[in-house]
């Protein structure tokens, strides 16, 4: 049992903390959010220079070789500063997905471009009408000569419009809802037939609805094994969830610190409002929710690398459920304790609260994960395949 960071992890935490302190103040963030592209290429370059874009990339591929804990360290810091950078999609999801099942060529080509900051990716796994179900895939991919032809629509793709490359789930066989028959493809958003509409989300990020109309991609755009992508999609999303939990903890800590400071400085009836017991107990409850959330983010960070899929599912979903609940409590009470000031756009409070609300919605809310937690053992746990079994033919 050991809750201490290694020296390397400590350095990672210090590095990102210092970097964001300098480059991601609330005012700087406001400008980034208002900018045309909605993220900061300068910050992205800076993160690349610090090696942060290679955190989950294997050391032999030039990365940091980190796991769930290293990702947690980075995400907590990003949460504290309300980062709107495309880190989750590009690094936490795409880089680890490619790392898990990509071919040598795919890794050799992509991972260096991700790490040096020249390429951003987005994962398009969800579809209209499918809510949070990862196997609700109606988008199709069929073979035509040496190509795959994709048709369908993807919903609320975070950073979808600024991505240089999309990772898209599509059905190569079976029916929507089947666990089998789902495949992953790289899709260049500049390709003919890729349409879309970018929009802001309420928490200052950007997302896109993406349509695929007879989009033709080359045979080596397939990631992993044709028809067997669901396990790797589930793993990738679990990594995202563990990361979001850590981000939420960062947000909650910052929000609690701001609220506590307000209780100590705001005066009414001649005393700081923190002297009133009702408010003190409310603040204590916020802190306890945050501590419990922190424990769960830790559990998710450790268990997301667990080869036992049921264990991983249970821990990750338990964490997301508890953090959905605690995030809502902390957010709502932070506004209440700030009174009218909590309602303004001017203070950071509202922005933290909005991010917490958005995190609950990403990759499944508390109810969704309560259900997944309770049924974790009943859901099949297929192995993750990087290569087709020898007797299978692949394009």
């Amino acid at each position, binding site marked *: *049992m050991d809750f201490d960071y290694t020296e390397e992890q400590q350095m990672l935490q210090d590095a990102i903390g210092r970097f964001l302190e300098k480059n991601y103040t609330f005012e700087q963030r406001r400008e980034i959010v208002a900018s045309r592209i909605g993220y900061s290429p300068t910050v992205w370059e800076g993160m690349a220079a610090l090696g942060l874009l290679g955190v989950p990339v294997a050391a032999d591929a030039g990365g940091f070789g980190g796991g769930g804990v290293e990702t947690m360290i980075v995400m907590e810091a990003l949460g504290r500063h309300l980062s709107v950078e495309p880190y989750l999609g590009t690094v936490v999801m795409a880089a680890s997905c490619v790392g898990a099942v990509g071919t040598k060529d795919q890794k050799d080509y992509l991972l260096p471009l991700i790490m040096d900051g020249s390429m951003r990716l987005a994962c398009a796994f969800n579809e209209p009408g499918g809510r949070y179900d990862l196997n609700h895939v109606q988008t199709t991919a069929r073979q035509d000569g040496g190509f795959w032809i994709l048709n369908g629509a993807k919903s609320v793709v975070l950073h979808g419009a600024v991505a240089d490359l999309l990772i898209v789930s599509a059905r190569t066989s079976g029916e929507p809802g089947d666990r089998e028959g789902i495949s992953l493809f790289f899709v260049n958003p500049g390709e003919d037939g890729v349409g879309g509409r970018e929009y802001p989300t309420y928490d200052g990020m950007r997302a896109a609805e993406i349509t695929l109309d007879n989009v033709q991609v080359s045979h080596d755009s397939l990631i992993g094994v044709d028809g067997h992508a669901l396990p790797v999609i589930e793993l990738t999303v679990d990594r995202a969830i563990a990361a979001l939990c850590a981000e939420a903890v960062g947000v909650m800590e910052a929000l609690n610190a701001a609220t506590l400071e307000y209780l100590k400085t705001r005066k009414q009836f001649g005393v700081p409002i*923190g002297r009133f017991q009702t408010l003190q107990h409310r*603040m*204590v409850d916020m802190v*306890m929710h945050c501590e419990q959330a922190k424990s769960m983010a830790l559990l998710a960070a450790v268990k997301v690398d667990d080869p036992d899929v049921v264990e991983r599912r249970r821990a990750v979903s338990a964490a997301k459920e508890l953090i959905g609940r605690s995030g809502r409590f902390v957010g709502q009470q932070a506004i209440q304790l700030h009174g009218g000031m909590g309602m303004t756009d001017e203070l950071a409070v509202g922005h933290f609260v909005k991010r917490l609300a958005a995190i609950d919605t990403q990759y499944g809310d508390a109810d969704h994960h*309560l259900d997944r937690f*309770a049924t974790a053992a009943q859901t099949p746990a297929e192995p993750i395949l990087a290569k087709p079994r020898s007797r299978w033919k692949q394009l």
Partner: protein
Amino acid sequence: MDLNYTPEQLAFRDEVRAFVRASLPHEVSRKVIEHKHLDKADYLTWQRILFEKGWIAPHWPVEFGGCGWDAVRRHILEEECAAAGAPPLISFGLHMVGPVIYTFGSPEQKARYLPRILSSEDWWCQGYSEPGSGSDLASLQTRAVREGDHYVVNGQKTWTTLAQHADMIFCLVRTSTTGKKQEGISFLLIDMHSPGITVRPIITLDGAHEVNEVWFEDVKVPVENLVGEEGRGWTYAKFLLSHERTNIAGVSRSKRELAFLKAIAAKESDGGRPLIDNVRFRDKISRVEIDLMALEITVLRVLAAESAGKAPGPEASILKIKGTEIQQALSELMMEAVGPYALPYLPAQWSNHWLGERVGPEYAGPLAARYFNMRKVTIYGGSNEIQRNIISQAILGL
């Protein structure tokens, strides 16, 4: 970062587990697991088994008969005992007055009382609360007046847990009424068999006799039974409270209760299907289970800090609040799970040896009484509101 025990700790856990499995009487653990009534002998049996093994006071220094274990080892023992259904240790001697005596007591007090606490020869109870002094403990009124080589004690204590079994009581008494109210308090050790002491039962809403009123009428207490200095009792009382253990969260006990709840919910039928398949009920169980998973990690975080040399601090208050909320939620769900068979109130049937015709399933009988009884946990040991005050002041600086 590693949430698992080290190989040494795992080996120790296996040793403890094997010992508990081999020596905890099945009769006793069955009562604990099935929420049946425990009598004095059940508690004493288990405490004497631990005493024989040398594990009765792992938190005491070796020189006084303890094991001198670190926080993690103590935690492992507590957790293994709870998981197996061992009765809780009666903490008044072992966890409360014992540490006060070995820290502040005279050599004679140490020599006389510590061995008898370890061997369970003396059953201790706690004389803190009074009818007018609950959360505001320092307002206590029980008077001790020095007369020659004796104190004469008059007053009343209340909520005295299991005083009906007790041989000794440690009391906070007022020896002075001048100055700050905390400064006139002293810490006395009183023989429960002294003339002038009357114990009256308080029957709680579940029908149990667990707590009592203890009346003192001109009770003569030898001066050598004063702990430390006169007027310093409040300091010793605070020391005692800070000796709260991380076990206060009761994670293993709650895990055991959770398993029992799931077993009941699998047996109970709801519309022709097991109750546990009713999503509305299953979700309630899952939510408590998730809270418990989080609490377990929180406990380990506090333990790790403690093992690294940090004194157990106000974080214990967080463990107390969350731990007791979970305990109450579990007892509530168990009562809900058995539906109408929560209603029959037949304490005589809550026995391992009931031979008569039973009303309802055996597991259902004590569950309502237990639910009502468990309302106490957010009140005792410093109510959860007092715990929030502690966190507010000590951690948040409000």
